[in-house]
Structures are given as structure tokens and as C-alpha cells.
């Protein structure tokens, strides 16, 4: 074990900045009067921006840290940017929301920052125990956030469900890690991949370890059949929290799946491939089919989030099937997650605004005729939904395009066909909301108050991002390819 050096701390700079900012906000909270709680939000936002700057600065110092348990590489850097973006958009979308719902407490921002810290540790970790610690930090913060509207029954239900099922799934992951350690004597991903790829190394019970770890991580990314909690939690949790939940822990868990199943355990090829293939198929189909019957927008978006996880898994299966040319598949997954983060966070924070005080108006019918009262808001939601369904000129289109192309290059024709059919089906339920807004007369029950400026800024930022990715994807694809390079 090499002694800890200053360089080790530089390589976890974003996490240090985020955690310090979170502690600062937490301690300051009781001293700040209720009227000035918004100041804590801006402090947190500065913290997020500073963490992003730190992430940019430490690019010169990339390498392993803390005895190989953390890696500061382009892969981690890419995901840290993504997570910080999701956190920043959530924060902008939640300031006024918390005020209207009378739960404006500074702890929200501290928990948001800590949840992001945990997710950042997850994506940078190259050691199973470190991954587990990151997962726990991010999970525990998000469990509390899900129940942030304490007086609301649904929020409590969401919190409890997420906590109980989440800890159950974490136990699975931990059990899988214990198995891997028992079989190979190491939890370091680099050593693990060396040990497993050595000739004659075929631990007999590795498949159990793989399945256990996959169940644990599959819960976090809500793959079918571990998705049961998703609609209830996404519906019950405060909408900005749902925005964060549906992106940050999910993207981090996908990063972990990439690192573990395509990096450390890469030699267990066939089983991993079929695990990914089957869950991709089930997740896409079930997510989309279930979404067809939803009338509640939050539930609809929850099932759509499940379906999107399915498309991401298609990209992963493609990367796994491509063998040494996995780069294209991994890059497509990274691109997809960036597009997904922009679209999903924006959609949920906009729904948070429309649902009004107490989140009373979540039904698609509540938006009837919204386009005549608030054309701007309606257009904004339409663009987001259209991008989620994958129309050309939006980020959603190129995200799907790259994933499907990678799948075809990996000769997964059947799976690609199912995925394309699924995206056609998905158009129907996304457009249901659009139809309610534009094609039906009536007074919208949904909040027709003007957009508060932080929310407006967040939406403008995401829309610019969505169209940038949809019209000029090339520079970003190059970035995704660079980020995919540290993985084999």
C-alpha cells in the first residue's frame, strides 16, 4: 500500500468540494432565517459549479488514487459532469417548488449535494467496496429526499418503499461482492480482471456472484423485473426529487455496470451478455407497454424512464457482443445517458411546476387546453416529450440512433428490431399529453402561473443542450468516445 499523497486528494477534488459545500449548507441551515433559505440554494449551486471547475482542472492529474480504489480518468470525468449537470438542473427546478409546497428547508440542498457526491464516487470507483460506499452515500441521501414532503402520504409511501426495497437490493450487491472476494481474493477491478483472464482461472461459483451483483445494480437502474418500485416512488416523491432520482443514481449505476461487467468481470462473457440481452428486451417492452395505460404524467414518465433504461441496456449488450470493439457500444451508452439526463430532468421539473401546490394536478387531462393559456410552457413540454420519444433534430433521436447502430454493428438484429418497434409504440403515449394540451378545448387545471425564472433558466439550458445534441452531435460523440476509451 503506497502512502497517501496530495495527488490522491486532487483526484477526488469534485467529491471533496461537493461534500464540503454540503456540510457548510447543513450547518448554516439552522442559523439562516426561513426567509433567506434560498441563499443556501445559491451557495449549493456555487458548490456544484466549483466542483465542475475542479473536475475540469484535475484533468491534467488523471490516474489512480488511494491505492487503486479510485480512478480519475476520462470516463469518471464524463460522468461527473453529467451528474453535476443533473444536480444543477434539479436545484434550479426545486427552489420555487419547495416554496410553494412549504417544505423549503436547507437540508434539501445539502442532501442533494451529498447524493451527488455519492454518485460521483460510484463512477470514479475501481474497487467494489468503494463502489458500495458510493452507492450507500447516494442512496441514503435520496431515500430521505424521496420523503421530503413529510405531510404528504404518497411522499411517505415513496420514501419507505424506496428505502426498504433499496436496502434489500443493496444487500444483494454486497452479497455478490462477498462472493467475488471469496472466489478471487480481491475486490479491485483491475486485479479482478487479471485474475479472471488468467488461463485456467474459472471459479466455479462466479455465475452466482454475477447474478447477485446484477440484481443489486439492476434495482438501481430499474430494469425489469426489478422495476416494481419505480412508478410508485417516482409518483410519490416530490417531482424535482424524481427528476434527480431518475437520472443521477441511475447514470451512476450504469457507469458501475460498465466498469464492473465490461471491465472487471469482462472474461465472464456469455453470461453477462445474456443477462444484459434479456433484461434489455424485458425492460424495453414492459416499460413501454405499461406506459401506454398511464394517465398520470409522473407515472407515465416513470415507465418511460424504465423503457429508456432498456435502450441503454441494448447499447451495453452491443458493447458486450462486440468483444474487442466494445468502444462504439460504450460510447453510444454514454451519449444516450447525457441526452436522457437533459430530457428527463427538464421534463420532471416542468411537471413539478404544472402540478401546482401540493402536486394536485398530475393527470394528462389536467393539461387540457394549456397551449391556449400558456403557449410557451406547452411548447416547452412538447419539445421535451418529442425528444424523449426520439424525433429527429432532437437529442433523443441521435441517442437512439447511435445505440441502434452499435447494436446492428454487433449483429444484434433481433434486439434492434424490437427496440425500433418499441420506440414507435412510445410515440403514442408521449403524444397523449401533447394532444391534451393542443387539441382539446377547455380550462387547464394545471398551474397556469408563469414560469419562475430559475426553472425557466434550467429549461432553457436543457432545451439548448437537447437541440445542440440533436443538430450537431459530432463533437459530443467524440467526447463520448474519449470517455469510453479507459474501458477495454
Amino acid at each position, binding site marked *: 500500500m503506497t*502512502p*497517501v499523497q496530495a495527488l490522491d486528494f486532487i483526484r477526488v477534488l469534485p467529491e471533496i468540494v461537493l461534500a464540503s459545500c454540503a*456540510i457548510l449548507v*447543513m*450547518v448554516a*441551515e*439552522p*442559523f439562516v432565517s426561513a426567509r433567506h433559505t434560498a441563499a443556501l440554494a445559491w451557495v449549493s449551486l456555487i458548490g456544484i459549479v466549483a466542483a465542475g471547475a475542479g473536475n475540469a482542472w484535475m484533468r491534467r492529474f488523471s490516474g489512480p488514487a488511494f491505492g487503486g480504489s479510485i480512478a480519475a480518468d476520462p470516463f469518471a470525468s464524463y460522468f461527473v459532469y453529467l451528474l453535476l449537470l443533473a444536480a444543477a438542473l434539479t436545484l434550479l427546478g426545486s427552489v420555487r417548488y419547495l416554496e410553494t409546497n412549504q417544505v423549503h428547508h436547507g437540508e434539501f440542498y445539502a442532501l442533494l449535494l451529498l447524493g451527488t457526491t455519492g454518485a460521483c464516487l460510484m463512477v470514479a470507483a475501481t474497487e467494489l467496496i468503494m463502489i458500495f460506499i458510493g452507492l450507500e452515500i447516494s442512496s441514503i441521501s435520496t431515500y430521505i429526499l424521496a420523503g421530503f414532503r413529510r405531510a404528504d402520504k404518497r411522499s411517505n409511501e415513496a420514501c419507505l418503499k424506496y428505502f426498504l426495497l433499496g436496502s434489500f437490493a443493496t444487500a444483494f450487491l454486497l452479497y455478490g461482492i462477498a462472493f467475488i472476494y471469496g*472466489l478471487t481474493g480481491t475486490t479491485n477491478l483491475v486485479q479482478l480482471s487479471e485474475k479472471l483472464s488468467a488461463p485456467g482461472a474459472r*471459479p*466455479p461459483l462466479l455465475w452466482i456472484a454475477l447474478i447477485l451483483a446484477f440484481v443489486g445494480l439492476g434495482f438501481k437502474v430499474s430494469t425489469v423485473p426489478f422495476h416494481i418500485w419505480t412508478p410508485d416512488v417516482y409518483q410519490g416523491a416530490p417531482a424535482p426529487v424524481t427528476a434527480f432520482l431518475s437520472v443521477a443514481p441511475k447514470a451512476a449505476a450504469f457507469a458501475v455496470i460498465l466498469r464492473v461487467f465490461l471491465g472487471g468481470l469482462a472474461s465472464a462473457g456469455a453470461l453477462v451478455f445474456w443477462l444484459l440481452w434479456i433484461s434489455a428486451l424485458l425492460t424495453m417492452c414492459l416499460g413501454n407497454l405499461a406506459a401506454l395505460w398511464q394517465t398520470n404524467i409522473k407515472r407515465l414518465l416513470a415507465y418511460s424512464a424504465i423503457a429508456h433504461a432498456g435502450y441503454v441496456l441494448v447499447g451495453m449488450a452491443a458493447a458486450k457482443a462486440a468483444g474487442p470493439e466494445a468502444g462504439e457500444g460504450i460510447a453510444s451508452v454514454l451519449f444516450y445517458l447525457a441526452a436522457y439526463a437533459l430530457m428527463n430532468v427538464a421534463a420532471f421539473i416542468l411537471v413539478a411546476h404544472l402540478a401546482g401546490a401540493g402536486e394536485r394536478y398530475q393527470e394528462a387531462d389536467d393539461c387540457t387546453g394549456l397551449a391556449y393559456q400558456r403557449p410557451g410552457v406547452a411548447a416547452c413540454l412538447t419539445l421535451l416529450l418529442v425528444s424523449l420519444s426520439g424525433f429527429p433534430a432532437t437529442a433523443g433521436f441521435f441517442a437512439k440512433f447511435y445505440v441502434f447502430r452499435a447494436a446492428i454493428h454487433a449483429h444484434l438484429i433481433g434486439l434492434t428490431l424490437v427496440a425500433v418497434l418499441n420506440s414507435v409504440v412510445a410515440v403514442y403515449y408521449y403524444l397523449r399529453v401533447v394532444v391534451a394540451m393542443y387539441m382539446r378545448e377547455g380550462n387547464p387545471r394545471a398551474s397556469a402561473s408563469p414560469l419562475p425564472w430559475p426553472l425557466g433558466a434550467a429549461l432553457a439550458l436543457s432545451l439548448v443542450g437537447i437541440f445542440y445534441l440533436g443538430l450537431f452531435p459530432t463533437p459530443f460523440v467524440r467526447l463520448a468516445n474519449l470517455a469510453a476509451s479507459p474501458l477495454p
Partner: protein
Amino acid sequence: MLRDYLPILVQLIAVSTVGAAILAVSAWVGKRRPSREKLSPYECGSVPVGNARERFSISFYLVGMLFILFDVEAVFLYPWAVVYKSLKWFGFLEMFLYILVLLAGYLYIWKKGALDWTR
């Protein structure tokens, strides 16, 4: 590989056999003369007063939980103290930061009134 786990299996079998045997023998050989004193719940020797099922303040749980939190975190001081000299300034600074974070938490719960019993 699997052979390595054989001792664990032997241990499992041995433990469950011995455990079951002790219970069975004492149930079979032992005498039972129950009395009121013997059937009352054991409370470290003091005489039980009234029913345990009554309502008590929510603060009890709060204080209990916070106590466990700080107690567990203080446990980390022991291994640190053992290797303190070889860690030199680095160890001191690390623990200083750790305690500082704990102190921040303490300040927070204090100011929030979580330690105020009468609130």
C-alpha cells in the same frame, strides 16, 4: 476451491448438533418448578414496576439514535490512537478533519433542538 469451505460445513454441523443436544438434554433431564418470581421478566435483578407498554417521548428515540451515531464514530478513534505515532502529522490532520465534520453535525443537531428534552 470448494474443499476450502469444508471446515465451515463441519463447524456448522458441529455447532447445530451441540446446540440442539444441550437444549434437548436440559429439557429432558431438568426439573421445572415455576413460581411467580421465576416467571417475571428478568430486569438485571431489579423488581419490575408496572407494564412496559406505555407511551414515551419521541425525543427518546431521537437522542438514542444520535447517541448511537456519535458512539459508533468515536470507535474509529481507537485504531487511530494505536497507530497515531507512525502516522505523524498526516494522521493528526485526517482525524482533525474527521472530528471537525462530527462537530459540524453536533452543532447542527444542537441548534435544531434535537437535544432539547422539554421541547
